[in-house]
């Protein structure tokens, strides 16, 4: 592991621990209102001040960090698993399986990612409870974000299928299921891992964009995108309103830097 990868992973771990720990010990939870202190300036009690409803900004940023650092990797994992199944079947069996999978992948990739996401999100209920809308948003990311990784995994499986060890395993009577589970998938682990790591920042940024357009989770659940909506009012912008943006940049940069640069082991 390179030094930059190690530093990025440590920063991410520290951010995650801070966000999780604040949820357990915070005296001012993200939805508690201090009605006598709306729009308060940063102070010892509120290091990032309060928003226009008198809620502690720091607690809300940390809560949103917890949500994104838990749900974005989960969604990326689901998308990669979906990609592994579709790309694996297409690459291993070939023929019509491959043609159908490639057609769907081409269709999904021919549409701009954000347009596809926006259209699909707007078709789902917009007035769902906040927790449900949060899960819907990340569920949608995982259901639509598999096409890119599937193409990479399909290519990897095709290459491995023709490799010498796979040919020898087949010649010795190894069945398709055993070949996939014992030989091909273990060799694809670095590719799968790289796909998960590269998908996480894409999902974080997509959620932030959707949140800014009002299509992510509703109040009172704070998300990074939802918190950035404070920037839409130019009259009330203060430096502390940029805190969510700074955290997004740090988290996405760390994910980009920490991405393992592994390839196939053959």
């Amino acid at each position, binding site marked *: 592991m390179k030094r930059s990868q190690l530093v990025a992973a440590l920063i991410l771990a520290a951010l995650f621990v801070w966000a999780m720990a604040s949820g357990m010990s915070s005296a001012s939870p993200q939805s508690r209102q201090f009605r006598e202190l709306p729009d308060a300036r940063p102070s010892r009690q509120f290091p990032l001040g309060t928003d226009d409803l008198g809620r502690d900004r720091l607690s809300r940023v940390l809560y949103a960090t917890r949500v994104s650092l838990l749900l974005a990797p989960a969604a990326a994992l689901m998308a990669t698993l979906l990609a592994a199944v579709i790309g694996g079947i297409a690459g291993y069996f070939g023929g019509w399986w491959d043609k159908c999978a490639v057609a769907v992948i081409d269709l999904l990739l021919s549409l701009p990612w954000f347009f596809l996401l926006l259209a699909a999100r707007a078709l789902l209920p917009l007035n769902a409870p906040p927790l449900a809308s949060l899960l819907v948003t990340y569920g949608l990311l995982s259901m639509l974000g598999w096409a890119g990784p599937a193409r990479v995994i399909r290519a990897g499986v095709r290459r491995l299928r023709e490799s010498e060890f796979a040919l020898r395993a087949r010649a010795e009577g190894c069945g398709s299921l055993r070949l996939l589970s014992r030989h091909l998938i273990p060799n694809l682990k670095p590719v799968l891992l790289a796909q998960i790591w590269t998908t996480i920042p894409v999902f974080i*940024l997509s959620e932030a964009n959707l949140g800014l357009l009002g299509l992510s989770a509703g109040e009172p659940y704070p998300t990074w995108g939802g918190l950035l909506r404070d920037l839409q009012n130019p009259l009330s912008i203060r430096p502390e309103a940029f805190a969510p943006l700074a955290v997004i940049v740090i988290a996405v940069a760390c994910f980009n830097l920490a991405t393992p640069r592994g390839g196939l082991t053959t």
Partner: protein
Amino acid sequence: MRAILHILTRRIGAMLLLLLAGGLLTALMVRFSPGFETDERELDPRLSQSSRLSLEKQRAADGDAANLANRFARMVFHADLGESPSLKRPIGELLRERLPVTAEIMAIGVIGGWTLAFALAMASVLSRRLVVRGLTASSQQVLICLPAAALAIVVFDIGGPVRALVALIICPRVFDFLRNLLHEAYQQPHILAARAKGLGEFAVWAKHVMPYAAPQLFALAATSVSIAFGAAIPVEALCDLPGIGQLAWLAATARDLPLLVVITLLVIAVTQACNMVSDWAALRRVDA
């Protein structure tokens, strides 16, 4: 030449199939989405029972499979784009009005983004100073970590040039590829030899580096059109620019089936056409 024609014919066929599949898929997605059965106009207390019933009938007719297929066929074979139920205007007229705005934003974005990325990549490859390399790479790293919508809001708030915003979104997405490609080109033995023999930097770039990198650059150029449209949606929606991106946003939030299908088809057609042109250009260069 025959091989190129064969590939292009296949691409046109695939594009037409993709257009059909994309249109049908979008129509089906909207038709079976939760909430298609509801209409916010029914919440209006001023409406009588008969008005509500007629709204229900109209919606049932809109969602009918035969009606959908008929509308889709009219659109494909008679170029009749229909009317937008949410904006109450012909879709063709809406597109004609808004296309120039999006075309301008995307053109500025693609050309500006590529020019900026190319300049930074050249500086990074040709400079021997670590500071220059570090600054170019880190500036792109920061830009790529910013959500497009947040960038749009900040630039809009400070009164910056919002129409040029897409360039800042495209630049970091092509920079890494450009830098690696140019670095690879400058490491080629014939280019090293040309530089060692004293050929000027511009001549090396124009006569040796660009011909080497061109096919891959054409391929990347097509994908940046798709990135530009994706970036134009939040930029237009948040900065109140009346373009196709804002129209897509309005159509999606209003569940406007005909408008959404037409925009999806338009987007697929444009991205596929760009892919085809880039493939053709790249193949011509390889063929030459």
